[in-house]
């Protein structure tokens, strides 16, 4: 063991400040293998998505999206609360588009798409572009471990981001009601519905955005690809929405699949008579908060799981076959 003294201590040994150079020490502690490795990649992914531990630039866009999502739910809760306080239950019902179902039918879903396009590429693109992926795969971690850990990190953030505004909306609706417990007793079924619907939305958005991020080398390319994937099919399939024979075409649109799944979970399936009346007059008597899906649950679930599983399998196969 070598011992050196600091400048202050050199003249007077009693002054303290002794520096010991104990040299290189071999590591004799625990090695926790793949479990620790997967957890580390997951934790790192979670931090990367939200820009934690990085400068303001990395935090700006994801947190701006989260604030907008929460802001929308606060506005919705305030509208319901205002109607409730001024005109009672009738007043609350007179404020359309403020339900848990409606939250993700228009604005919320689009902002979530933007959020996914901005943050998901952070998880896979830089590792491939910087060559850091090599460093991961020479450790006790397989390509499958790596990509699943990143996927799980993205899913966790997406679920939290999807659920947070719904809880804020719930809190607003409960606290805005003159009898909060009565409101909860009457509407408690909204909670499992928005949890389930939120998880379904988060899972599919994660699957699609991680696939795009896995195939693109640059974050910018992945973001543009994702925005295009969210917007273009929606625009292409929109004309078929009111044609009963061609409604199935809308299942090629990610937004439509999620929208219809959301309807199924909250409001169920539309009866044939109601569907016919809406086809005849698609813009008449439109109820923003209780809209039902026109697709059979089996068809809708097949479309949903197709959109969910195909990107997962393609991404997994791509990383399994990746040669460095």
């Amino acid at each position, binding site marked *: 063991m070598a011992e050196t003294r600091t400048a202050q201590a050199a003249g007077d040994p009693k002054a303290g400040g002794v520096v010991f150079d104990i040299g290189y020490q071999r590591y004799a502690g*625990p090695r926790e293998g793949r479990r620790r490795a997967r957890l*580390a990649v997951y*934790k790192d992914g979670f931090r990367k998505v939200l820009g934690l531990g990085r400068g303001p630039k990395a935090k700006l866009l994801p947190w701006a999206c989260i604030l907008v999502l929460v802001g929308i739910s606060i506005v919705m809760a305030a509208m319901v609360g205002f109607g409730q306080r001024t005109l009672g239950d009738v007043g609350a019902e007179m404020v359309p588009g403020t339900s848990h179902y409606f939250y993700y039918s228009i604005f919320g879903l689009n902002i979530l798409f933007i959020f996914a396009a901005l943050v998901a590429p952070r998880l896979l693109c830089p590792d491939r572009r910087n*060559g850091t992926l090599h*460093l991961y795969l020479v450790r*006790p971690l397989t390509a499958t471990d790596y990509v699943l850990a990143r996927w799980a990190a993205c899913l966790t953030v997406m679920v939290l981001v999807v659920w947070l505004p719904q809880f804020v909306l719930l809190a607003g609706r409960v606290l805005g009601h003159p009898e909060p417990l009565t409101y909860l007793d009457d509407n408690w079924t909204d909670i499992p519905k928005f949890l389930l619907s939120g998880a379904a939305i988060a899972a599919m958005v994660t699957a699609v955005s991680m696939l795009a991020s896995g195939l693109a080398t640059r974050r910018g390319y992945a973001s543009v690809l994702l925005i295009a994937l969210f917007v273009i099919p929606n625009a292409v399939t929109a004309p078929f929405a009111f044609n009963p024979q061609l409604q199935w075409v809308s299942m090629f649109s990610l937004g439509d699949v999620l929208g219809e799944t959301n309807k199924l979970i909250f409001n169920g399936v539309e009866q044939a008579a109601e569907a016919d009346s809406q086809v005849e007059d698609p813009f008449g008597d439109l109820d923003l908060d209780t809209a039902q899906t026109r697709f059979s649950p089996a068809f809708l679930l097949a479309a949903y799981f197709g959109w969910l599983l195909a990107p997962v399998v393609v991404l997994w196969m791509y990383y399994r076959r990746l*040669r460095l």
Partner: protein
Amino acid sequence: MLEGNALMTMDNVTKQYPAVVALHEVDLSFTEGITGLLGENGAGKSTMIKILLGLVPPTSGSVQVLGEDVTRNPLVRTRLGYMPEHDCLPFEAPAAEFLCHIAEVSGLPAARARMRAADTLRHVGLFEARHRPMGTYSTGMKQRVKLAQALVHDPDIVLLDEPAAGLDPAGRDDMLGLVRKTYREFGITVVFSSHLMSDVERTCDRITVLEGGRVAKSGAVAEYTAETRTLFIEVDGNRERFVAALEARGVSVGVGKGGVAVQGSDEDLADLVRDALVEAEAPLRRMAPRRRELAELFTGVDGDHGEAGEAG
């Protein structure tokens, strides 16, 4: 070429890519110490390292690393370190944070990972700069971080792919010093690839020369740099008179920029040299048997008949 106490062995390993055979029936073992993989670009050095790490499966043959098949048991990699030749660092992350993360990915618990990251950065001389983003580092500092990430989990073996590539002479010296330190002070066996003879000669105990995917030579560096039967002499003046005096005594002399080389190493020759020095009044600066250089492995020059100017 398989030996006892081998840490890694390759048994009849062939790696065939669609257009090229990268390795051809390689039998090789790596023992404790510093082993240099020497070869031109495309000789198969990087492919060999990737196969040893389990990143690329061999087309045929078997590979054992620390007694395990690395392609079937990725846990072996907790005891391996790898420093790639190319860039691999996230530029926005500070070195300390990145190393801590990499240590965790290697299986170390979080608290231990933090301690190891700080210690390893101290050992490679980056302790003061550890909280700066790596994008602000010089090339030499980035190479040090790359070495540190290969050592942070305290592996038994570390594989370094061209560790001194892209460095200036001073940076190259520092990096090769760290490579020597890795084995001599840290006790970690090193396999490092290079296409530069001088790096391998200065750093390694053993050498494996690859040519076109085959092992051309393999053995201790000392075997290839053994003393020759050529005596190398440098004088501070009167060199022409000294050469003439030697030739007058019937000694075969080779003259180069650096000095004078004479064939033979026995005592009679030494006496003749002494007499010639006295006669020519040439002050002696240095006299020693000449050592072969690794470069001769490739050029085919026989050390006993080498140019005197290359000696020393």
